[in-house]
């Protein structure tokens, strides 16, 4: 049984998992849906009450009924690199590829339906609340007056994109940024705006969830750090990520979250305040993990490989401590 990995060629983070699967002698087919009708091909036939399909890529051929799992990592848009690409061809290719894969018995990391829903940040915030994870006061609005009133109640504010996406025309980054309460909020009318009470944090936390395993890493805010640099992704810091333990109440909330969301993988971002409270910021259903593994040495890639290689959904989870956190993280 084969593991199918959908990602771009340049995804060196996926390589970390491929290496682990190779070491375990688990068959792997890696392809980018963008290469459909080029170096990637597919075929499937419904006849006599059954289905037989296969994919080929780079000289490898795999039957769709021979897939044990599908890892949706960083796939390109289907047929984006076809000889004559078009939105129509992309939709046709997406329907053919994902439609056939969804009919297989393979396990997904993550299932496309769960992934699509899990990308919505407002949905994330609501689910986190229901799972008992502390969520900073947050407003998403197109009403400038609502923004002004929110700033009056929560004068220490940040703004961040609702989607998490960065504009590409021209390419710009939109880091989480502090907002003065005296700011002119008139432009809130021109796009949904997410304002959130700033957490006076002493550390950033990245909690990577793989199946039932929790691997947490902590990056302390160094003394004298610029308080306006609130986005750890863009703040210059020599402080590395270090392995961290997970408070039981957080572990319980996170487990409830991934169970409700139907996720096999999630990268949670928290901010730790001066009291040690972990404030939920977001959960990226396909968040990066290589930089955490490089800093901490935590076996995230191996844990993903083990999950993908498991023979069936009913099999036991890899060994974990009774509280579910990885021993290496504590």
């Amino acid at each position, binding site marked *: 049984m084969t593991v199918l990995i959908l990602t771009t060629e340049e995804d060196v983070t996926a390589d970390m998992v491929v290496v682990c699967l190779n070491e375990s002698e688990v068959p792997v087919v890696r392809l980018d849906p963008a290469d459909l009708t080029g170096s990637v091909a597919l075929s499937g036939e419904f006849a006599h009450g059954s289905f037989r399909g296969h994919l080929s890529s780079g000289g490898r051929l795999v039957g769709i009924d021979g897939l044990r799992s599908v890892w949706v990592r960083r796939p390109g848009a289907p047929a984006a690199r076809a000889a004559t690409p078009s939105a129509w061809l992309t939709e046709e290719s997406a329907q053919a590829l994902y439609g056939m894969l969804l009919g297989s018995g393979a396990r997904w990391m993550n299932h496309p339906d769960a992934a699509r829903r899990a990308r919505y940040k407002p949905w994330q915030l609501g689910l986190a609340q229901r799972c008992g994870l502390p969520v900073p006061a947050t407003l998403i609005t197109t009403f400038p007056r609502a923004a002004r009133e929110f700033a009056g109640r929560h004068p220490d504010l940040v703004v961040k994109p609702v989607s998490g996406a960065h504009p590409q025309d021209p390419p710009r980054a939109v880091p989480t*940024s502090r907002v003065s309460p005296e700011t002119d909020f008139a432009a809130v009318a021109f796009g949904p705006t997410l304002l959130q009470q700033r957490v006076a944090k002493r550390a950033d936390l990245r909690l990577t969830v793989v199946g039932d395993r929790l691997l947490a890493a902590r990056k302390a805010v160094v003394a004298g750090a610029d308080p306006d640099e609130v986005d750890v*992704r863009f703040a210059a810091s020599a402080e590395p990520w270090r392995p961290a333990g997970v408070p039981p109440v957080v572990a319980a909330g996170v487990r409830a979250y991934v169970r409700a969301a139907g996720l096999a993988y999630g990268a949670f971002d928290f901010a730790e305040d001066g009291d040690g409270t972990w404030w939920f910021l977001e959960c990226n259903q396909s968040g*990066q993990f*290589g930089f955490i593994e490089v800093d901490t040495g935590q076996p995230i890639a191996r844990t993903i490989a083990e999950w993908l290689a498991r023979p069936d959904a009913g099999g036991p989870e890899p060994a974990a401590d009774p509280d579910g956190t990885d021993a290496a993280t504590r």
Partner: protein
Amino acid sequence: MQPFALEYARPVGDLEVATPYVYDSGRQVNVLLDGRVAAGDHALLRELGTTTSTAGSKTHFDD
């Protein structure tokens, strides 16, 4: 008419990171010029930042 959040946008540098490795379709991983698997060189990955939480932002929502 610019949305409020874009008032906080920053220009980004060259997104095309020159990487000293290429994809090997036979091995299904990226390899360095000497044939080693690039993912095994953690010092290199740290230097290039290709596994960081902003590396996927150009084409994907998930950092």
